[in-house]
Every structure is written in C-alpha cells, then in structure tokens.
C-alpha cells in the first residue's frame, strides 16, 4: 500500500500497514464542490462512520452528508425557560417572602416594603428574569454544543497526518473510519479514488 500515503515519516510509509491498526482513510479534495459530490457518493454507498473536514462551513454539505438537524435549540429553549423561572423564584423568595429554606445553607427571605409597592411586584422583577433567561440560554448553548461535538478533545488520530493540518487553512478532506462496518482497506481506497481526490492517505490509530 505504499501508494497510499505521502506522509514522510517512516512509520507512515505503509510497510507496517498489516500490523498497525488503521484509524481511517483520508481523501483530500481541492474545492468545496468536489468534496460535496464525494460526500453524496459516500452517503449513497451506505457508510456511517465518516465525516467531512473543512476550513469553514460549506453551504449544502449538511444535506449532502445527510446530517439530521441538531436538537440543540430545543434544549436551549429549556435552559432559557429555567433561567426565567430561577429569576422569578430568586427575587420572589429574597424580596417578597419570609420563608426559610435550605439552599446549601439555611436562608431566609426578607419582605422589602419599597414606596408602598406590593410585596410581590412582578413587573419590577422582569429585567433580572430576562437577563437570567439570556445568561442560562447562552451558556448552555456553548456548553451543549461542545458536549455534543465531543470537545474539548485535544488529541485525535487525525492530527497525526501532516495533510490534515491544512484542513484549518484551505483543504477539504473526507474521512472514512476503519470502524465502519462497510470499511475494507483495499475496497474503500479504490472507492475513494473513483471520487477524483487530490490524494488518499491512511491514518493510523
């Protein structure tokens, strides 16, 4: 399989391909358009453990790859609604009630009488409820996005490839992982070559 790789390191030259487990096969494309055609072909071929890597989000690639819409917005809505409820509860408890309850320590509310306004003056609580809605929704957006993406994950087998480093610059790469049930080193490489890539490379696990 010496034709497979252009990685200059000796261990990547393919001679040990029989005994070193493979992470994936990587195919590089010159333009987003070519990558998108390749992605459509890979999806139609029935692969499941594969991905495209691009320097920027390519418009239409989600559809070509058959990625289902993320449930992130629904969860963020839930987080925002929690923020509203927490905002109201916090202010109603601390400023409008004399309740004592346990929140890590024992705390007691203090009914503030301010310029003869009602104790539970909800309109005055709206700004803080709003800010907490945004705060919880925005922080959960970021943390859930990272969680679903499996990040941070500082090391990854793909980073072994010199070629892969250009993905964050200007190269477009399609990766089929060895764990895919349909994966077979020879056949998958042949298949990738039919998609007109610039190069195909093996990445060790």
């Amino acid at each position: 399989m010496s034709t497979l790789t252009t990685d200059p390191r000796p261990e990547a030259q393919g001679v040990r391909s029989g005994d070193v487990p493979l992470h994936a096969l990587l195919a590089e494309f010159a333009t987003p358009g070519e990558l998108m055609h390749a992605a459509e072909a890979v999806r139609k071929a029935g692969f499941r453990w594969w991905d495209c890597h691009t320097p920027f989000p390519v418009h239409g690639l989600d559809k070509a790859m058959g990625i289902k819409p993320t449930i992130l917005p629904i969860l963020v809505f839930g987080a925002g609604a929690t923020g509203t409820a927490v905002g109201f509860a916090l202010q109603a408890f601390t400023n409008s009630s004399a309740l004592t309850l346990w929140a890590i320590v024992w705390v007691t509310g203090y009914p503030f009488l301010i310029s003869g306004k009602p104790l539970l003056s909800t309109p005055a609580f709206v700004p803080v409820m709003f800010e907490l809605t945004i705060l919880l929704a925005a922080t959960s957006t970021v943390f859930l996005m990272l969680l679903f993406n499996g990040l941070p994950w500082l090391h990854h087998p793909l980073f072994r490839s010199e070629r892969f480093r250009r993905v964050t610059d200007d190269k477009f790469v399609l990766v089929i992982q060895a764990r895919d049930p349909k994966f077979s080193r020879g056949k998958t490489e042949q298949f990738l070559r039919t998609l007109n890539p610039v190069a195909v490379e093996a990445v060790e696990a």
Partner: protein
Amino acid sequence: MTTLRADQAFLPSGEPDNTVEVPGTRAPLVFNHDSFHAVTETVCKVPEAKSPPLIWTLGFLLALMCTGMLGFMVTYLIFTGVGVWGLNNPVSWAFDITNFVFWVGIGHAGTLISAILFLFRQKWRTGINRFAEAMTIFAVICAGLFPGIHIGRVWLAYWLFPIPNQMEMWPQFRSPLLWDVFAVSTYFTVSLLFWYVGMIPDLATLRDRATGRIQQFGYGLFALGWRGSNRHWHRYERAYLLLAALSTPLVLSVHSVVSFDFAVSQLPGWHSTIFPPYFVAGAIFSGFAMVVTLAVPARQLFGLKNIITIRHLDNMNKVILVTGCMVGYAYSVEFFVAWYSGAMYEKFAFVNRAFGQYWWAYWIMVSCNVITPQLFWFKAIRTSIPLMFILSIFVNVGMWFERFVIIVTSLANDFLPTSWDTFVPTWVDVGTMVGAFGLFFTLFLLFCRYLPMIAMAEVKAIMPQANPHAGPGPGPGTGPGPGTGPGIGHAAAHSHGEGAHP
C-alpha cells in the same frame, strides 16, 4: 463608463473602490486574495511575526504606563476614600458613572456587528466582527471597573449579589441599580462566550500552523481540539445563530437598563421615557465611532486593507450617520418635552443644561454628536481615511460629554437652589479616566498581537469560491473572472453562499 464597475473604480487615495453598487452582482468584500490560503497568510502573519511593528511596541508601552497610572489611582482611592474625587453633596455621580456609561456604550457596536448584522445576513460584518467583539469585551471590562470602585467601601462589593450573608440581608431587586448588575454581568459573559466560540476555528488554524512549542500548546489548548468536522460545524453554526439571536435582545436590554438607572429616578433631566431608545442609539453611535477609530490604524499597521476594505468603513460611517441623526433627534425631543410638559423644574433643567455653568460641555456635545456625523452625507468624506478617523474621534469625545452632561448638569442644579453646587474634577478623576483608556488599549493591543484579528473562517466562507456550486476551480482558488480588473479577486453573483444558513 468605467466608474460604474465596482471592481475597476479607485478612490483618490489609490485604494480600490468597492462602494459602488453594480446591479446584478455583489460588491467584492475581499481584494487580492485569490485563494483561501492567502487569507490565512494575511491574518496569521500578525500573530506569527517574530517581533511586532515598532508603533505597536511604543503604543503598548504608553498604554501600559496609563494602566499603571489607573492602578495607582484606584489604589489611592481605595485607601483614602471617594473624597479624592471632586464629588460634592448634590453631585454624587460624576466621572465614575460617566466613564461607566461611556464604556458600556462603546461595547454595544461590537455586539451589533456580531449579532444583529449576522441575523440580517450582512456579509461585510465578517471583516470587522472579530476585533469589534474584542473591543466589546475590553470596553465592558473598563465599564465594570467603575461601579466596582465608586461604591466607597470596595471590600463590600459582594453586597451587589444575592449571596447569603451573616446579616441575613438581600439586595433590593426593585432597584434599577441591581438590574444593572445583572445586565452588565450577563452582557460580559455572553459577549465573551460569543467572541470565544467565534474564535475556536481560527485558533485551530493558528495551532496547525504553529512551529514553537509554546504556541502549539497555547493555541492548541484554547482551540479545544477543533478539527473542522462538518458534523461539528453543523452544531457550531446552530449554536452561533442561537448566540446571535440571544445577544440581540440582550444588547438592547443592557443599555435600556443602564438608562433606567437615570430614567426611573425623579430628577429633572433624568426622569424621561425617551431614555432607553435614546441610550441604545447613542451606544451604537459611540461604539461604531470607536470601531472606526481602531480599524483605521489597525488595517494600516497590520496590512489588512484588502480584508477591511473601504466598503466596510463606508458602511460603518453610514451607521454613524444614522445613529447620529437619532441622537440629534433625541436631544431636540428632550427640549420639546421639557417645554411641552409645562413643568417648571423640567424646563429649567434643559435651559440650564445649554446655558448654565456647564454650557461649554453641552455645546461640545452638540457640535460633536449632531453636527459632525452630518458630514458623512458626503461620500468623499465617508471614504476618506484621514477625515473619518478625525470625525470618529470627535464622536468619541462628544459621546463622553453627552454622559457627563446628562449626569452632572442634572445633579448639580436640581430642585432647591440652596443645595446647588458645581462639580470640578480632581486630578484623581482625570487620572482614572485616562487610565481606563490605557487599560482598554493595553488589552486591545495584546489582542492584535496574539490572536487572529480577522474571523478567517467567516471571511473564507463569503469568498466566491466557497460556494460549492461555483464549479471546479482551476488550481489554487478561482481565478479572476472575465472583465475583472487586474489584481482584484472577483466576486461573482451567487445565489446562496451564506456563511451560515438558518
């Protein structure tokens, strides 16, 4: 008719003019970058340079000295008490809150560019959003300093937050000042997240190009292992859209809440229903002026003229013109309402503002904020680099004085003439104000030197060859199209090459 073609026109300064609208085509937003790699090179060469430009070093030293002065002023204040400021009995807020409102306002342009222009699919935002957002963060840091130090007993600042304490006391949530605590801290957190999330792909670019161990580790750590996976991009884009959608009402709420600090009180000159929209317009006005003030030298110094083009600057000047008109309108409506209300104190407050002991501050404000932006009706001024830089500084000065006028003139002469007094700033007041600028520029210059100043991934996504339907390009990137002027990357009309899609 060469001037009708956007890609063939040039400004008197020699820069290509992409401000002209050519029917049926999109104006090019990036010049002289035929490939994605060229954009990476242009942006990355700043943080990758061995040593910064000399002007950067000199500016940084100056800013650092001012920051040191700020540290001294704040320490002196804490050890001595707020009496070191020129505050007196009626004027209990002066430079401190003026600086606070000024800096919060500066921040608003960054969020407007990053969130509101994103929702409106304004592609030109990609050239300027990164450093406008950085400006927001640093401005909010400066803003957050002032309420912290003006409270007198700084060591009791935790009373601002609902933390269980030995006195069993809670903050008073019906007060706009407490709403402000929540608004500004939420604003800072969300702006920081928005800025950082936008920067993750670009930090990954710097990580993958880094040669030194420190850079590899530093950029690698903060890039979180980003590898440009399209399954990741899918969630990332959705998250970015959500952040934009959340930041838009947030930014409007923050300055509205800041204005409530005044409007909810009963002081003539403050007690006004126009304040929330008036403050938001003023914030965007001053913030855009600060973006221009920073963008003009930055694009010159770091060779970014082909990415922050004259069209970007022209658009920003148009925003300054529009918001400047809104601010001018608000000034006149305030006077009209004071007269129409028939309230003696209200009428006096405004006549006093224009002709009382602070008349000079009022007229500096009017000339800088009402007259100056009107010059941007002329295209020659909107596209002249030196003129726009000078005018943007005038707007910055004017907007600082606007807050000073609102706060100090209203407090100095309120209901009872026997309790009137005049505020005169002390050297500590002035030193703290200058020091805050030092802190702002220190942080901003560090950002320029070590972080990607341009959102590379976003700029690449708006280039014509990013459109997957553009067809295979010959070799590295798509070459200039037919009829394109020499050396200018073409921007063919394409139907849907958005950086993100809903």
